[in-house]
């Protein structure tokens, strides 16, 4: 009798940890997708990607709490600001650097990360802002285990956006143009694709998807510096998935999400905060192209 009780508690914990992990993983994938888009299309390694999440979280908090907007409008406003932020980053920060070496570009994106963080702290301060519930917070039974609704919504929203973006890359004219530019810029120019517009689009998409991820995170944990800490997990995800692989980023997001969740649940002691970076280092040592990094096609 007692045995069975312990067993079912064990299963329950496991299911809950799994769902938490997958939810976090879906958000991570969404956040990291923008990084991959920018890297693929423009070749830039964007160290500011995690801080776009922070901006998103505070924007939606400000929209709802400071401006009393309905949550829907607050999200729309945050996304519009995100797109503008992405476009401005491309136009004023990176375009002047075209042709500069990789290290300078990386330094500039690191600088951008500090600027974004500083800006958020300057405008909204550093104390955590609890978020009014806008995604329903109740619980539902899933596989006989109570699960909070906002996690399920996080998975649904992140999944839907990832699916839409995948479709966009496979089917739409602009999606194919972006992949063409990622493949061969000059050949893309020769078929009339404006490389400049593709770069702008890449940054806009990157910022928008990250801000959306930031909004979902804020809904789970409130708006605080923690969002940026969560955003930094983008790097282990993209390194694990391969810097340029969209499917890779989705799978790696799930892996890192689960890993953090299980470590927190079964080991604890703060190891969960370190484990993604241990993975990062291991991958860099063992498989620098990640699990799914695109193979350079060498036949010609």
């Amino acid at each position: 009798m007692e045995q069975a009780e312990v067993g079912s508690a064990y299963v329950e914990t496991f299911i809950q940890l799994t769902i938490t992990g997958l939810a976090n993983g879906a958000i991570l994938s969404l956040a990291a997708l923008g990084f991959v888009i920018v890297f693929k299309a423009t070749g830039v390694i964007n160290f500011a990607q995690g801080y776009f999440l922070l901006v998103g979280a505070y924007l939606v908090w400000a929209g709802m709490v400071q401006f009393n907007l309905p949550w829907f409008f607050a999200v729309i406003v945050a996304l519009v600001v995100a797109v503008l932020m992405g476009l401005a980053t491309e136009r004023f920060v990176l375009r002047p650097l075209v042709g500069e070496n990789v290290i300078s570009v990386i330094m500039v994106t690191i600088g951008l990360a500090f600027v974004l963080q500083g800006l958020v702290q300057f405008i909204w301060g550093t104390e955590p802002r609890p978020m009014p519930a806008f995604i329903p917070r109740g619980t539902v039974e899933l596989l006989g285990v109570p699960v909070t609704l906002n996690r399920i919504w996080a998975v649904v929203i992140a999944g839907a956006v990832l699916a839409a973006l995948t479709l966009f890359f496979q089917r739409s004219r602009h999606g194919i143009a972006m992949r063409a530019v990622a493949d061969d810029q000059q050949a893309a120019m020769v078929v009339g694709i404006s490389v400049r517009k593709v770069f702008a689009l890449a940054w806009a998409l990157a910022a928008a998807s990250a801000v959306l991820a930031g909004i979902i995170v804020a809904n789970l944990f409130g708006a605080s510096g923690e969002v940026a800490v969560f955003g930094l997990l983008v790097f282990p995800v993209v390194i694990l998935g391969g810097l340029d692989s969209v499917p890779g980023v989705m799978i790696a997001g799930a892996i890192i999400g689960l890993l953090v969740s299980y470590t927190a649940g079964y080991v604890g002691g703060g190891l969960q905060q370190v484990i993604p970076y241990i993975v990062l280092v291991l991958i860099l040592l063992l498989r620098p192209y990640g699990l799914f990094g695109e193979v350079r096609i060498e036949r010609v």
Partner: protein
Amino acid sequence: MSSVRNGDAGGQGRSAPAPGGPADTALMLELNNVEVIYEEVILVLRGMSMQVPEGKIVALLGSNGAGKSTTLKAICGLLPSEHGEITDGTITFGGIDVTHTDAAQIVRMGLSLVMEGRRVFGHLTVSENLVAGAHTRRDSHADDLDMVYGYFPRLADLRGRTAGYLSGGEQQMLAIGRALMARPRIMMLDEPSLGLAPMLVSEIFDIVQRLNRDLGTTVLLVEQNARRALNIADHGYIMEQGRIVLEGPAADLADNPDVKEFYLGIGESGQRRSYRDVKHYKRRKRWL
């Protein structure tokens, strides 16, 4: 009588086309004394002038490094992406000055380039490559897909394949098909025969000829394979060190003793000369 004539070495004041020259019909593309410099110091085109009449096939021949690809890149607005610049002269397309027009705009105007080395989008499928080729089109391009598959039935069988893994010949077909998707008025091909087996070269040249005949597409063909190029061309230009040194109707050029000597590899004795002989001879005698 042959109407082959030497290009004016300095390229100065070249305006009146020779009688019987390529300018009898409407001009589609004209280069006038074009000078191109890479990296602000490397002078590559030195007064390049040529004319491509509407509806014709024009061959541009010349040895390695003569500046053929540079000429095409200059026309297409690709030089800025290679730290190159047109520093003098003009390029007109259908009477409009396009000397400094950007690449995307050039394609919209009806000028397509099939680049040297094929340059298909390796990670895209065959059909995605073709869709990318129609990027500038606002109207439906379903018919054009069918047309391309009609010209290249092999591509139709391979439409779902990743382009990077196609054979060289298939990639060349895809590159031409992709350019065709933009519905160009003029198609420029940079060494389409490069690295292909003779059979495939014939097939590709055959299709180029058919595109010209059926669709009325003007063709500017850059080639090392002078014999085959002159075979399908109406008019030919020979380029050396950044300018035209010889031009004429293709048939006359193919008969020209110098051309035979240097580009067709046939000596006056009618024998094929070895490359080294030709090289040696070339050093002694230049058209310049």
